[in-house]
């Protein structure tokens, strides 16, 4: 079966196949990631999908993540928006990450919606009760992007009701900045993100927030290697939404979500997470479901460098 994420003139005839393709491609990549990589390390993860903590990727390691958002749509078609992340620890204080976004909308079509490149920096070299991280991201996406990796300004569910053929005409060349504040206390991670996003072509700054808390089910490790023991599971919740724009900073007309989550980290280095999200007002999708699988390849930088020696 030939699969493509690129738009095709005959959306109506191939839409179901395309959504199946996205699902199977995601599943295949996940299986390859989990089974195919020879060696890995277990990272210190938080299970958030939107919120960032101050924990960066270990230097030289590459984490590959496959994530998806399923969203229910009022006055429109439900959708699945998958994205792939390549997260690399350039330094112990600097993590760089590259994203590829796509989406498939039921009864409409599927398409590649763009890419993002983000960088996170820790300005302070020691741990404090509140740890700041500076975040800068460049986004090159189109208006059909439905990954909802962040919610800013007056982003709302009505934006996603626009047909793909129309939405993809809108080009979004954006700079996103975040101030990440994060703390670890008695096994809990508590993180707050303040988001500012600017379309480089026009429009004012758009603001948003994300707050998350998570904790492993068991704090101490057991002496045996196990897959299903409580120490491998994390639970948490995050709340996020828009805060208007620099022209109109307000909560009115913005969308907000509350999302509990569960993460499962295998000793092999693979991790899984799932998070149902609930819209908190009429501007929000009523329900979204996110899931993801990731795998960390240790010493990736070293392996690449060895190719050039």
């Amino acid at each position, binding site marked *: 079966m030939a699969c493509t994420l690129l738009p095709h003139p005959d959306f109506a005839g191939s839409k179901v196949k395309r959504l199946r393709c996205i699902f199977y491609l995601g599943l295949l990549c996940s299986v390859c990631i989990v089974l195919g990589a020879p060696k890995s390390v277990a990272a210190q993860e938080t299970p958030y999908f939107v919120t960032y903590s101050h924990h960066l990727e270990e230097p030289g390691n590459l984490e590959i993540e496959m994530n998806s958002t399923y969203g229910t749509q009022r006055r429109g078609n439900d959708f699945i928006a998958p994205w792939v992340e390549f997260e690399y620890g350039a330094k112990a204080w600097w993590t*760089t990450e590259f994203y590829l976004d796509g989406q498939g909308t039921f009864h409409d079509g599927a398409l590649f919606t763009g890419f993002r*490149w983000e960088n996170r920096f820790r300005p302070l*070299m020691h*741990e404090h009760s509140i740890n700041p991280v500076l975040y800068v991201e460049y986004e090159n996406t189109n208006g059909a992007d439905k990954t909802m990796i962040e919610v800013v300004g007056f982003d709302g569910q009505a934006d996603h009701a626009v047909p793909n053929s129309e939405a993809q005409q809108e080009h979004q060349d954006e700079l996103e900045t975040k101030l990440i504040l994060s703390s670890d206390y008695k096994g809990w991670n508590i993180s707050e993100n303040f988001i500012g996003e600017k379309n480089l072509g026009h429009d004012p700054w758009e603001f948003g927030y994300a707050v998350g808390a998570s904790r492993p089910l068991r*704090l*101490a*490790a057991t*002496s045996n290697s196990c897959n299903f023991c409580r120490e491998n599971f994390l639970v948490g919740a995050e709340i996020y939404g828009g805060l208007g724009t620099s022209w109109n900073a307000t909560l009115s007309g913005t969308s907000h979500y509350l999302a509990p989550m569960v993460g499962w980290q295998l000793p092999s280095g693979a991790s899984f997470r799932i998070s149902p999200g609930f819209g908190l007002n009429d501007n929000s999708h009523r329900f979204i479901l996110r899931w993801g699988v990731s795998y960390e390849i240790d010493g990736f*930088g070293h392996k*690449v460098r060895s190719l050039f020696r």
Partner: protein
Amino acid sequence: MTPMTRWIIPGLLVLALAFALAGSAAEQDHEHRHEHPTDDRGVLLAIAQAPQRTREWRNPYEGQPDAVLAGEKLFRQHCAECHGSNARGKGHAVNLHLSAVQNATPGELEWFLRNGNLWRGMPSWSGLPEQRRWQIVAYLKSLRR
């Protein structure tokens, strides 16, 4: 967007990735040339940053064989890639059998694990619960036997 500008951003991304990899390589080579990975002095300097109060901290898992085993498991998951499965150091990562490490107090080691040495490439392990850091310390201390 013109065809030319379409390629500028991906080009910049590739350059940035190459820069990141090269920067990491340069740093590691630099450390390898100028500071021997098993040098006691570098370790002493890093651990000496621990505040005075940490020297009095006791490991809550001291004398518990299970904690040593759990610490060994955690070490293999998180630390062995850099420090080697026998903890004798690898590349620019230090040998954990060194007297500088073995003579450090449990509190200093736990502090060092929590904070790391970000500028020198040692990540912070504050994302691990405190209990698991103490279990790793219990394992590290067992290496001297």
